[in-house]
């Protein structure tokens, strides 16, 4: 009786979640699966097969994949070093590596623009040292740089959390049983940190795959990712049906990564928050 009444308190949130989470998603499917006259169609979803769309999806997948892999390679050693750091300063040091995560996304990207531009900081330094300048801005490399820079902390955090939880004696036990440090890493540390890796991958891969800001600011208008295509359909082209159709395709990839996360991260161990 009493807990019944307490459960009723969920009412406002339930209403909110239906109105602003469920219905909007239904809207995406409604618009994505109808044409301008409100007739049912698969055209908007199948439009992904058009050369310019499939190309932007392909580039987005490729760049997101490369960025994610580089993020793992950079973040894993860092997280291991941070975990093994002794003393009470480690919490503060971890904070330092997480801090950029909370800095405005656009300003972070703008910072790289400043560095990478043709007359930007990096080229100025190269010029000063009488070295040939590089074309960095408006290339896929610039986008990868931007993605790694923006999302690296999202990889460090779950990895750090999961590695921190491993009992040091489990590592000692492996050493004690005759494993050298490489074997210990491969057989013990790595498998035990899988939930963190998976959660880091989703936290880097999904935003990289779907971004339009990084590619907009660092890739010029030359390189269109699937995010840019969708954004343009909604803002400049006002073709919501096509935009929604392509978003459905995007959501399929997100759902896949959510399922993968759910399988590997049953206890929410790698949860970053």
């Amino acid at each position, binding site marked *: 009786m009493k807990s019944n009444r307490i459960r009723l308190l969920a009412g406002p949130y339930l209403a909110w979640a239906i109105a602003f989470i469920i219905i909007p998603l239904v809207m995406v499917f409604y618009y994505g699966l109808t044409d301008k006259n409100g007739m049912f169609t698969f055209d908007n979803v199948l439009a992904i097969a058009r050369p310019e769309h499939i190309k932007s999806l392909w580039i987005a997948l490729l760049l997101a994949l490369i960025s994610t892999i580089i993020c793992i390679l950079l973040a894993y050693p860092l997280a291991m070093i941070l975990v093994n750091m002794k003393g009470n300063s480690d919490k503060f040091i971890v904070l330092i590596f997480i801090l950029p995560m909370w800095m405005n996304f656009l300003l972070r990207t703008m910072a790289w623009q400043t560095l990478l531009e043709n007359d930007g900081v990096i080229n100025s330094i190269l010029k000063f040292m009488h070295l040939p300048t590089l074309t960095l801005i408006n290339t896929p490399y610039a986008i990868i740089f931007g993605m790694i820079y923006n999302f690296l902390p999202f990889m460090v955090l779950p990895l750090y959390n999961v590695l921190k939880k491993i009992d040091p004696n489990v590592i000692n036990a492996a050493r*004690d*049983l*005759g494993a050298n440090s490489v*074997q210990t890493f491969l057989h013990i540390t790595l498998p035990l940190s899988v939930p963190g890796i998976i959660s880091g991958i989703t936290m880097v891969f999904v935003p990289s795959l779907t971004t339009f800001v990084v590619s907009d600011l660092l890739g010029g208008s030359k390189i269109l990712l699937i995010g840019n295509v969708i954004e343009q359909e909604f803002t400049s082209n006002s073709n919501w049906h096509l935009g929604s159709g392509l978003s459905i395709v995007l959501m399929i990839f997100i759902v896949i990564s959510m399922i993968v996360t759910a399988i590997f991260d049953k206890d929410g161990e790698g949860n970053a928050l």
Partner: protein
Amino acid sequence: MSNKLIDLQNITKAFDGQVVLDDMNLYIRENEFLTLLGPSGCGKTTTLRIIGGFESPDKGRVIFDGEDITKMPPNKRQLNTVFQKYALFTHMTIAENIAFGLKIKGKSKSYIDDKIKYALKLVNLDGYGSRMPDSLSGGQQQRIAIARAIVNEPKVLLLDEPLGALDLKLRQDMQYELIRLKNELGITFIYVTHDQEEALTMSDTIVVMNQGYIQQIGTPESIYNEPENAFVADFIGDSNIIDSIMVRDELVSIFGHNFACVDKGFGENKPVDVVIRPEDVELVKPEEGTIEGVVTHIIFKGVHYEMEVTACGYEWLVHSTSCFPVGTKVGIKVDPFNIQIMNKPESEDEEAVGVEE
């Protein structure tokens, strides 16, 4: 039995400037059950970790079977450890856990399978091979941790408070289990605990440690009956520790009353500490005792009564099978063999090595 298997020479270790072990010397014989006993922070676990290779000493050497292994990494040492809270590999089955060390050494599959079977039987967990560690109880996980260590046929098994996380009943069962295992395997056990009862039950040799120093090394009997200082006396069992004066050989003055004892060589009229175990205090009629006192507390403990007797301003702890109600006037008598004389700590530094708990 007399062969020195492990020899710790002048081991010193400090963490962040805090000395945990100070010039420690200790040897462990082959086939010995040796227990490092002491309160937390006494350096017993650090000693074990230095033997295991998880810490390296700042100074000193670790000799194993005549060979200096001070700098040898743990994976090269011929000993295995059973860790506090078991440290099982939670992502592997029980069988995979046990097989880990053997697989690393590249043993054949049939050899490994046989060993797993043998080890599971040895720890009474036949048929648990395909289970995951999380699905086992604490006591079962403990047995697996032991099985995982012993399949590698180490010369020495290091056990770091292995029973600490178990409840009382299970702990007692496991003590007998460990003694049985030790006898069946015929290897050396080095055991770390803060539980004096565990130490007394299982060990051949007990090393009592406090604040980085070895306080006493001896058999359980000698540690209990002849503690060398107040710390050991107080840490092992209950005791009455009284400031007294050694009048001459075989005579000690406790609160101005002369007691016959058996100790010699302390000098004349020298201040000493006297230890009398509560079960060694005899309560008799007032006129028959050396000292007179009054019973102030009494609790029935099952096997015996635990009493407090105030005599000469000191509260004597007494265990006796006969009951003396509160307020009874009693005499206190002690058999000369049951009076243990100990030197007073000489310096203030040693004084600091006092009772912690």
